[in-house]
Structures are given as C-alpha cells and as structure tokens.
C-alpha cells in the first residue's frame, strides 16, 4: 500500500545523485534499447502470465505483481515486428509510465517483455543524438533519442509514448465495438 510512497522517495534520492543519465539497456530482437533508470521499477523472471483474450497481440497478458494485476506488453509486436519468442534469458521489465486515462495522472505499472537485459549504463546528454527522421523502423515519437555507447547506437525509448495507456486502450477493439453497432 505504501509502495508508491517509497518509489517517490527513491526517485527523489535518485534525482539528487544524478541518476537521470543512467539507462538500463536491453535487447529486443537484435536491437539494443535503453530506458531511463528512473522509469524502471524492477526486473522479474518471465513466467506465469495470464493471457487476456480479445486483446491485440502486443498485449501479452497480465501478471500478479505482489497482489496487483499488471499488464505485460510485447514491444516487438508493438513495433510491428512480430511477437517475440520467449527464451531462457527473457525477462519482464516493470516500468512506471504516466497513466493518461481519465483524470488520474498517477503513475501506472506496465511490464514489457525483453529478450535479454544487458546492463545499466551512464549516457551523458552530450552522447545522445536526436532520433533520425526514418531508418529506425519505429514510430518517431517512441524514440527519445539515439545514445552512443562504445561506437554503437542504442535506441532510447520514450516509454510514456510507446506505452501510452490511452493509445493502447484504443487499439484493443479487435472484437466488435457495441456502440457503433447501429450505423453499420
């Protein structure tokens, strides 16, 4: 019950010690991605996922995270690259994103499936290039920037966009939407 509080405190401590340049890097498919460490809540083993029917394929299901039910998103499917296959090193990274549904602007927990978690890196702002106009094969607004790490680029994700709750909710109506039943 007091988890949000502690997390808020963590964030504050983190901010004061200059953690905003720290990123967690992980692999999805063959590409490296990174998410600001302040968005990360925890990393758990992949498993005991409950599939939610009638949802698009990028919603892999829900898990029980110590008593609260958290959705798990397959980013690979979200980027239109097909469902990711689960391997031995697959993990679920629990992120905190802005819950933009309705009037509650509190943080929401969302899990993403990653093929492997690499490490936490420090990427100073000087080492971050703006996102390319095209070429990344990912919607431009999902990318916060391109980080240079040892001569390689990693894609810094804008998780608030990529996991935007409202957008995800609107995408889910694969089955008939009862309200528009009349004029069809």
């Amino acid at each position, binding site marked *: 019950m007091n988890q949000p509080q502690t997390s808020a405190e963590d964030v504050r401590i983190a901010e004061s010690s200059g953690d905003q340049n720290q990123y967690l890097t992980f692999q999805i498919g063959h590409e490296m991605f990174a998410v600001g460490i302040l968005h990360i809540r925890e990393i758990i083993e992949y498993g005991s996922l409950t599939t939610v*029917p009638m949802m698009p394929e990028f919603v892999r299901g829900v898990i029980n995270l110590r008593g609260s039910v958290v959705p798990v998103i397959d980013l690979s499917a979200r980027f239109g690259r097909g469902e990711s296959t689960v391997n031995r090193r697959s993990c679920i990274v629990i992120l905190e994103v802005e819950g933009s549904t309705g009037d509650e602007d509190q943080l929401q927990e969302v899990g993403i499936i990653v093929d492997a978690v690499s490490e936490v890196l420090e990427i100073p702002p000087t080492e971050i290039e703006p996102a390319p106009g095209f070429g990344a094969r990912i919607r431009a607004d999902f990318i916060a920037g391109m980080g240079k790490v040892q001569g390689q680029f990693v894609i810094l994700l804008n998780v608030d966009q990529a996991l935007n709750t409202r957008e995800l*909710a609107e995408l889910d109506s694969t089955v008939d939407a009862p309200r528009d039943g009349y004029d069809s």
Partner: protein
Amino acid sequence: MTTMATALQTFLDESRELLSDMELLLLAMESRSGEPELQNALFRCVHTIKGSAGMFGLDHVVDFTHVVENVLDRLRAGEIALSRDLANLLLRCRDHISLLVEVPEPSEAAALQPGGVVLLAGLEPFHSCAGSSHAQTDSTEPVAAEASRKCRIDIRIHADALRHGMDPLGFIRFLGTLGDVAAVRTLEEKLPVLGDMDPETCYLDFEIDLVTSADRIAIENIFELASDLYQIEVQDQCPVTEVDPVAAPLPAQPDTDESVESAAPGAEEQADTSQQNRRRKQVQHFRIQADKLDNLINLVGELVISSAAVSLGAEQSGDTPARESAANLNLLVEAIRDSSLDLRMVPIGETFQRFQRVVRDVASELGKDIELVVTGADTELDKTVVEKIGDPLTHLVRNACDHGVEAPAARSQKGKPTRGRVHLNAYHESGSIIIEVSDDGGGLSRERILAKAMERELVRPDAVLTDQDVFNLIFEPGFSTVEQVTNLSGRGVGMDVVRRNIESLRGTVELVSPGVLGGTTFRIRLPLTLAIIDGFMARVGDATYVVPLEMVVECTELSAEQQLGAEQHYINLRQEVLPLIRLRAHFKLSGELRKRQNIIVVRHGGQKAGLIVDELLGENQTVIKPLGGIFSNLRGLSGSTILGNGQVALILDVPTLIQQVARQEDAANRGFQSHARPRLSAS
C-alpha cells in the same frame, strides 16, 4: 480544537439526517395532515436543530429555525392547518435551513440573508396572526397545552469539557430557551486550591431549577451532543401551579451526589433507565468514517486471497490436520468477508425517499399531478453503489415525470385518472439488484424515435432494427424526441450520461415499453457489490476464468453427440433451448479441443445461456481487482482476481458477453437480410 471540529461534524451529520426526516414528514403530512405524531416529530426535528445550533453559537441558524419552530408549534397545537401553500413554504424553509447549517461561520451566512427574509415574510401570517402575545420571546415559546412544572437538572461535568469546547455556559443559556431558569447552583467541591488550578479544566458542576413545559427528553436532548462529557439527571418536581418555586424543597437538598441518590431513589432509577435507553440507541447506530470501512474491506480482500493460498498449500501438503484447519479458516474468512461487506450494505429506501420531493417539485412545475409509489425500499446494496446511483436515478425520475406522464387534460381524454403515477421498485435477482423506474404515461413511440434517429443520422434509413434496438437509441448522445425543450429535460443531454454512469458501476440499463404500468419502464441492473464476490472457476485452455456464482444456474457435461456439430449454437436442455457460447472460439484461444467439455448454465435477466469450458474447477471467493487502463475498452471481462496459486484469473462479464455474442449473430443475420431484401427499411 479538533474535538470541536468533530462535534461540529456530528452536528452537521445529525442536522442533515433531521432535515431529510423533516422533508419526509412534511410530504407525509400532506396526505395525513391530522396526525399529531407527525406534527410532533416535525416539531422535534426543527427544535433539535435549533438546540444544537444554539450550542455552537450558530445564531443565523437559531434565528431562522426559531420562527419555523414557532409556526410548527402552532401547527401541532391545532391553531393553524397545513395548507398546500404552507407545506410548500415549509419545504422551502427546510431547504433554507439546510443551506444555513452548511455555512460554518455566521459572517458567511449574510449571503443567504435575502432568501431567509423572503421566507420569514412568508411565514409571518402563520405565526403572528393569533398570538403575538407569545410568539416573540424564547421563554414563552413552548406553548399552552402542557402545564409548566419545575425540574431539577443536575449536571456533572467532565474535567475535559472546556478543552472539548463544550462550555457549560452555553448549555445553561440554552436551557433558557426551554423555560425559565429559576435558579442555578454552582457546586464547587471539586475546586482545587488556587495554585493547583488549571485554567483549561472544568471544576464546576451545576444544579439548575428550570420552570418549563418541555419534557425530560427535550431537556436531555440539549446535552445529547456532549453526552460523554455531561452527566445529566433531570428530576421532575411538582407542577408550578401547585408549589411555589421558592418554597420548593430545594435548599434542603444536600449538594453531593450520594445524598441526592438517597434522597430521591425513584428519580435516580428513572434517570438510570433513561440512560440505559440512550445506551441502547448508541448500540443501534454507530457512525464510522467511510474510509476506515473501505480500508477494512481492502484488508479483508487481501485476507481472502491469502487464505486461498493457505488452503492450496494445505491441500498440497496432504497433511490432514492442516487441511482441516485451513477449511476452518476458510469458513471464518468467508464469514468475516460477508459481515464486513454487510457493513457497507444500506437499504435503497433512503435514496428512493428523496424522490418524493423531486416528483412533487417537478410535477408542480409542470402543472401535473403525479404520485410516487415506492416498493422494495428495504432492498440492500453497497453504499458505494448507492452514492453513485443517485444522479442517474434523478434523471430517470425527472424524465418519467416530464416525458412519461401526460398532462392531466390529455390523461382524462384517454380515460386515465388525472393523477399520474411514477413507480420506483427495487429487488434482487441473481446477484444483481434491479431498480425500475416506471410511469403510467403514453409509452414510447417506436416510429417517433426512429424518425428522430434518422433525422439525427444515428441510423441509416435502410437499417433493420428490433424494438429493443430502437428503444436503446434514446441512450445515444444528443437524442431527444420531445419537440419543446423544457427546463427540466428534453435537451437530449442526459440519457447517454445515465448509461455511462451506470456502466461505470458495471451495470446495465434498458428500456421497456410498454412497461410495468403501461408507460415506459427503465430497468437498471447493478452488481450488489464492487469488492468481493463468490465466484465459480473454470478452465479454458491454459487460463482460468471466474463466473460470478450468483449467475450460475447449473453445470452439466457436454455429451459426445452434442459436441459433434461445431456449427450448432444451441442444445436441448431438458426440453428447453439453451443457446451456447463457445468461450474458446469466442476468445479465439488456440489449442486442442479437449475430449470432454462442460457447460456452465448462466442466467442474466430472463436469458439463459450455456458457456462451454474445458474443465470445471469449483467455487472460490473472488476479490475483484480492476484491470488497468489499457483494458478499459475491453468488453466481456469485468475484472481480474488473484488465485491461491498466485495466478491471475479473469472474471467473465456474463451480461456483456451474452450481448456481444447476440450482436455478432445479429450482425451476421442482418448482413444476410440486407442482401436478400435490400431497402426493406424500417419506415
């Protein structure tokens, strides 16, 4: 200071209650005006408010209620009769009092002054015509009928009284409004030596002689607010007429507690029983802060989940004593769950009663004569649901009065009684509560709705719609068939909001015409609670689903020959047609069909359906966890729950599931029809 705030909150709560009583009484008196009980009760309401307000020094409340009280007093004395005008006026006075009470500072009440002045002017003829002689001063206000007598009031005050803001002086002053304070004796035996005295502690007790016609209860009521700080004994003494107050045996009375007891054992006994009465009252009702209760219910939810885990563990360990204890624990947890949820259950009657006033006001504004009939008032539902259902209901009731019931002239033309009826009804049905709002008006015209819908381009001209589809159109945004917009309704804002509000409570609303009384009936179906339910678990593929147990009628195996036709969507269940929903197919789940399949027969409203599942897992207690934001548009699932083994199970929303399947089928059929018979439009 916080205790003072608590006391003030108590006053507010109490006043709100009294004011709603007052409204009901006034409405009841319109039909049964002669009953002295109602008149007395009404008087007491206002009197108590005035009394409590006086104690808090809320002069603006006291001043106004005082006049109202005078009028009511004359009413109960039979000096004036309750005309419709007076009833109207008193209802408006009630509203004004409720405004006044909510204003915390007398200074802020100035804004309400003009309204009050108008009302007071209206009351003028009722309280001054006969008796200017006794209307003006407080002390003479308890009128005539009862003989004045002298009471001895013995007040023992707790040392903390001053710290709690319960200044004895306020009480004593206020006693003056009940009668004449003939004598006040200060008992100062508790006073310490000056050096030890704490200025915030109350050391004094009082004995007061009061000449009054008010009865013991009325006197005790004054102190009710501070009942834990003030011990009151009221002893009746001889009527004033017989005994000279000065010569009353007061000075002879010793001034310590013990001797009072010995001197007047009878009175002591009486006081004792009255205290017992009060204690009994406290047992009956207990105010709890709502969030404390919510917190408790959250904890009970966690407890339910943990105890499921314990049971599972015990089951797996195979240890018999452990299993027995777990079973016992489960029973207890179930009982705790039920009784804690029960705490939040309130009868819907209170909500219904509010509509007496709504109907009355709307009717008089529209020049109609409408009676509100209420049944099923003791049907209980969760307080959180009750709070949210008020607005949609108000809307439906106003609609029934405005659009449903016809004007008197039109009614008599049709040979109906001129007095229209609006009926509010509530009952339980398979795990839901049903609330019906019916009117005996003309009902809805399918043609008019359809015409309007086409005008608004809500339906295509060639659409083929069932009656139900057509009626459901009125829940579309921006829909209204009434030509002229009244200030009550008709703007078409509302019905869509009503539906949205009800759906946000996991409920449904439908319209039936002709309804129960011949006009229209709105039927609202709501879940009894939003927190914990009894569920029935079943497995489809790898996933576990939960069906609310109240909806489950029976379970049966799908026999081999029934399984053969995958195209078959109904079976013969004991000579009844049972439509089937193949969950695996409907949810587009992959995986092999099992050899054996089972049917869960569920009922929603009048509709039965069979859910085909792989395996039946039995009952469990289901703590409803809402699915997060990204599932907000998902239909057919109402939430999730966590099982004993830590897995998440999804809760089926049977009503929308049935609706979904029906619509899909409908859409398929309609597609076929419009091919076969193009332009067979609903005209």
